[in-house]
């Protein structure tokens, strides 16, 4: 336990001192501001640039438009930033050889993986909450949030999707020992999940559901229970990636 705490502390120190935490917080803070502000300003901007005589009737933006921005930006740009920040989580240790000292001191390899996993989840959670809190603040300041259903649940499932991505990045890093492998595996898996989504009966099991149908929750078109299968699959996949990464790592030459 002591070695777990020591190594996790080291992971946080690393994220802070190599400015990765700063990048995460800044980007997600910006997203947090952007989502409601874009929703608010889009009609005004459109009006300004509209040529003389052309009339488009745009309804006044609502809280739903703000959340639509949130659930568009985070699954795309947000997850992308997450992958960029964490793709070197394992790979950097391999390529720099920094683990040799640590492992010959008797740190178990599973602790390495679990420490990195917990740190990444915590940093992702903190950035995500920051983004959500800022978006929420602006949204209720501009509009009424009464028309929005299941907001917290929709936010939770997207968070869970982020955790899956982190486990994939770690798994890829252990498997290929470099950051390209980590990114490639994550990218390929996401593409495969989107391809699977073409088959309608599989959609409800697909982890992609957690990052693509959030607005349907907010409008009440879908209910939380519609997400149960996907949540179970996503959690199982995340755990599998982490559990399988350990024996693979044990066999890796460093």
């Amino acid at each position: 336990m002591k070695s777990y705490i020591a190594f996790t502390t080291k992971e946080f120190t690393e994220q802070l001192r190599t400015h990765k935490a700063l990048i995460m917080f800044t980007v997600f803070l910006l997203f947090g501001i952007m989502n409601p502000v874009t929703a608010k300003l889009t009609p005004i901007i459109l009006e300004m640039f509209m040529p003389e005589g052309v009339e488009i009737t745009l309804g006044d933006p609502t809280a739903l438009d703000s959340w639509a921005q949130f659930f568009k930006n985070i699954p795309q740009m947000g997850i992308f930033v997450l992958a960029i920040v964490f793709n070197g989580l394992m790979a950097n240790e391999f390529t720099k050889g920094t683990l040799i000292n640590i492992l010959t001191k008797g740190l178990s390899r599973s602790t390495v993986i679990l420490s990195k996993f917990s740190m990444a989840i915590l940093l992702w959670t903190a950035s995500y909450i920051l983004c959500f809190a800022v978006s929420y603040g602006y949204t209720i300041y501009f509009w009424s949030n009464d028309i929005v259903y299941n907001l917290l649940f929709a936010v939770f499932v997207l968070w869970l999707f982020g955790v899956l991505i982190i486990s994939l990045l770690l798994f890829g890093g252990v498997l290929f020992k470099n950051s390209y492998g980590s990114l490639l595996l994550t990218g390929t898996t996401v593409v495969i999940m989107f391809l699977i989504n073409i088959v309608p009966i599989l959609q409800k099991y697909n982890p992609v559901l957690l990052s693509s149908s959030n607005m349907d929750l907010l409008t009440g078109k879908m209910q939380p229970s519609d997400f149960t299968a996907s949540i179970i699959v996503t959690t199982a996949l995340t755990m599998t990636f982490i559990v399988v990464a350990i024996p693979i790592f044990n066999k890796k030459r460093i």
Partner: protein
Amino acid sequence: MNILNIEKISKSFGKNKVINDLSFSVPENSIFGFIGQNGAGKTTTMKMVLGLLKADSGKITVLGEPVVYGQTKTNKYIGYLPDVPEFYSYMTPKEYLKLCGDITGMDDKTIKIKSDELISLVGLDKANKRIGGFSRGMKQRLGIAQALLNEPQLLICDEPTSALDPKGRKEILDILSTVKGKTTVVFSTHILSDVERICDRVAVLHSGKLALAGTLPEIKAQHKNDSLIVEFAVLEELECFKAIINGCSLIKAVEELNKGIILHTYNILEAEAVVLSLLSKNNLLPLKLEVAEPTLENLFMEITA
């Protein structure tokens, strides 16, 4: 008692057999020099001892306990200094030692005392900055400090001096001599003067096998030299000597020096007697007549040739 025992280990990378049926042991409280050319398999052997590489066959024990590939318990007895030690560049030496101490399960107080002691032993007390700005030599010293942190019974250093300047080398060797008595040191190198300076036992690794092993005096005695050096003050005397010695049946080969000559002989004692009598008969007075001491370098060249 032997602290490290290696029995008949072999290791191949693909078709390339790096270690071939290698056996040796390291007695307690010695400084053991592990010599070999670049690529001879020194690092491979050390990594197998640490359980970082899997041996194809054979058995390794540390303090009687077998080494297992992957997670090996025997590493708690070992301090390891890799050839190029890599640290987290954003940490300071003290933070790094704290991390190492926490991982090995030392308590905070011991870590504090031990790391202060080691940091001053390796001369890093004034370097309280992040490791990212360290020179190679400073990293090497920190490497020794981290390797000695948990008071290991066996310290394994992989070419600790190869990349350092003469001053840095001397300092590292001095540190290694200091820990002798408390810790058994195994260090690999291809710098033979380092070995002669501090080691009391050596093993020479050549094409995956042990070409030579034992204490330094033993080895030198076994490979007693056969060469006689004769030097003169003026060239004429040398020419004259060369003329009279030419054709002597005891001389195997002749090597010329600036104002002297090296005679490789079949029998050093007889040859020396003959040379002395020839010198006096011809009234030649050499500046120097010497039986060449076998150097580790000569032995090494002989073995690896």
